[in-house]
């Protein structure tokens, strides 16, 4: 590895990290502002113009707050758990491509932390590691309420991870038919969604000319299941029993100050990265019109990132909208939705989608 390549790798990772921190800062403010609008309130408006510095103020406040450590905690695990929450949250976003690769000085720079061949598996691996933070935080707090909350949160995360994985499998199988062989690399999946459906189905060209070739349209059921699962995975309303105001049994009940803020940070980073993954899998990632030639090169170079952020923020908005609209589920309803609706639904969709794909590839089963 030569020195320019080394610095490009460092730059990619640092840029991805910085992007994640910046959007989290904005996301917290955006959520409070949008939620306030939907509930006919004003929301934060003191710190900075339109209250945009509210997150900074809150962060500083949490930073200087006393971090109370209860007497009965298991101190090692208690201190470790917040870090176990934050690290996987940041790592998940590292494989998401957030812009079109560009060439600088003969070196290609991909706007992505790391383009892994196993991108989707990496995401599944990291989200399965995020469970430990919840388990260990709940257990090490030395109190029965966080323990119960931790067990509940873990059960929720594991249940909905199954539905999320199955929805992903359907997309991967469909994506395999759109190019040369199957792939788990996110950058490859994005590139296979370039153009419009009119290019693929010439018969319906006049109708489909303006329909982008996103996986969303053929895989709409998978998208609905995936989105429901990621809302539950990130412990957001209406699945936010883990941290709901009237529930005393959250896994982070015994945390305060900066340690609590780290769980909070992990949640908001997860909202953004999960939205980004959904945008990558279903909404074509950074694909979009770049008006090559008619605008300066710098503009058409930045536009893909703008499209990516626009799509991701559309989904983040959906997260907030769902929170403002739907009442919270009871715990048994939560489990029933996961195991009796989403997982069977995802399995049925997987079978159906497989059947259609094999029919189109091999014809009817009785043909030789």
């Amino acid at each position, binding site marked *: *590895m030569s020195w320019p390549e080394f610095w490009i790798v460092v730059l990619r990772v640092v840029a991805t990290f910085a992007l994640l921190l910046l959007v989290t800062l904005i996301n917290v403010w955006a959520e409070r502002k949008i939620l306030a609008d939907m509930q006919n309130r004003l929301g934060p408006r003191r710190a900075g113009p339109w209250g945009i510095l509210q997150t900074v103020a809150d962060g500083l406040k949490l930073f200087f707050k006393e971090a109370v450590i209860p007497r009965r905690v*298991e101190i*090692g*695990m208690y201190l*470790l758990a917040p870090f176990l929450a934050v690290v996987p949250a940041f790592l998940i976003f590292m494989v998401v491509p957030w812009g079109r690769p560009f060439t600088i000085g003969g070196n290609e720079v991909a706007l992505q932390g790391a383009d*892994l*061949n*196993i991108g989707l*598996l*990496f995401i*599944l*691996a990291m989200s*399965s*590691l995020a*469970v*430990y933070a919840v*388990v*260990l935080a709940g*257990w090490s707090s030395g109190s029965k309420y966080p*323990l119960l909350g931790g*067990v509940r949160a*873990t059960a929720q995360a*594991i249940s909905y991870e199954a539905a999320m994985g199955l929805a992903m499998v359907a997309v991967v199988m469909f994506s395999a038919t759109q190019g040369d*062989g*199957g*792939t*788990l690399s996110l950058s490859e999946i994005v590139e296979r969604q370039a153009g419009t459906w009119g290019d693929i189905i010439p018969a319906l060209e006049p109708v489909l000319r303006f329909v982008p070739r996103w996986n969303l349209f053929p895989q709409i059921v998978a998208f609905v299941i995936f989105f429901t699962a990621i809302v539950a995975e990130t412990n957001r309303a209406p699945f936010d029993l883990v941290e709901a105001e009237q529930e005393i049994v959250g896994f982070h009940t015994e945390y305060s100050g900066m340690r609590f803020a780290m769980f909070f940070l992990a949640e908001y980073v997860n909202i953004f990265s999960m939205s980004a993954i959904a945008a990558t899998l279903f909404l074509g990632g950074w694909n979009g019109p770049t008006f090559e030639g008619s605008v300066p090169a710098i503009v058409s170079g930045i536009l893909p990132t703008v499209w990516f952020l626009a799509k991701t923020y559309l989904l983040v908005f959906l997260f907030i909208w769902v929170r403002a609209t739907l009442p919270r589920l009871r715990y048994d309803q939560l489990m029933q939705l996961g195991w009796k609706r989403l997982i069977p639904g995802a399995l049925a969709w997987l079978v159906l989608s497989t059947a259609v794909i094999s029919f189109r590839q091999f014809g009817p089963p009785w043909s030789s």
Partner: protein
Amino acid sequence: MVETILFVLAAAGALAGAVTVVLARNPIYSAVGLLGTLFSVAVLYVVQLAHLVAAVQVIVYAGAVMTLFLFVIMLIGVDKEEKREENLPRQRLWVGAVAGVIILFAAGVAVFGDFAWVPAATGPVDQEATNGTVQAIAEPLFTDWVLAFEATALLLTIAAAGAVVLAMFRRKRN
């Protein structure tokens, strides 16, 4: 260079985790130590360019199996220190002696002998070929070895169904 640094870090992590598993008084710390070892071994797989194996290691072992371990430890409530008495007398001595002999043998082979059982990698690694490990594993798995693959799937389903049946049977008798 990068490989050496990664190897040293991951190997140290794996060993530290393994030592924690043995030495920790509290079983939860042992479980977390094992988690650290499994994760460090996954990093070692990545250094060897076996990305798929690393991902599977983290998803299956560090993710699923260890969560189950932690759950069992917590729900059974073994969160107190274990008793130090042993049911089998002098078992540590025997296990330690066997392990010591094996380690001495391995060290001896590594230092003196030409170890012919596992030939070392010859020639430079083809980055392009090994980087596509998902495809490289999937292709033979679903063509040459598809019968073994399906049989394993069936076996696992039978095991899961068998576990359910056993649990139901016991509940009925009570």
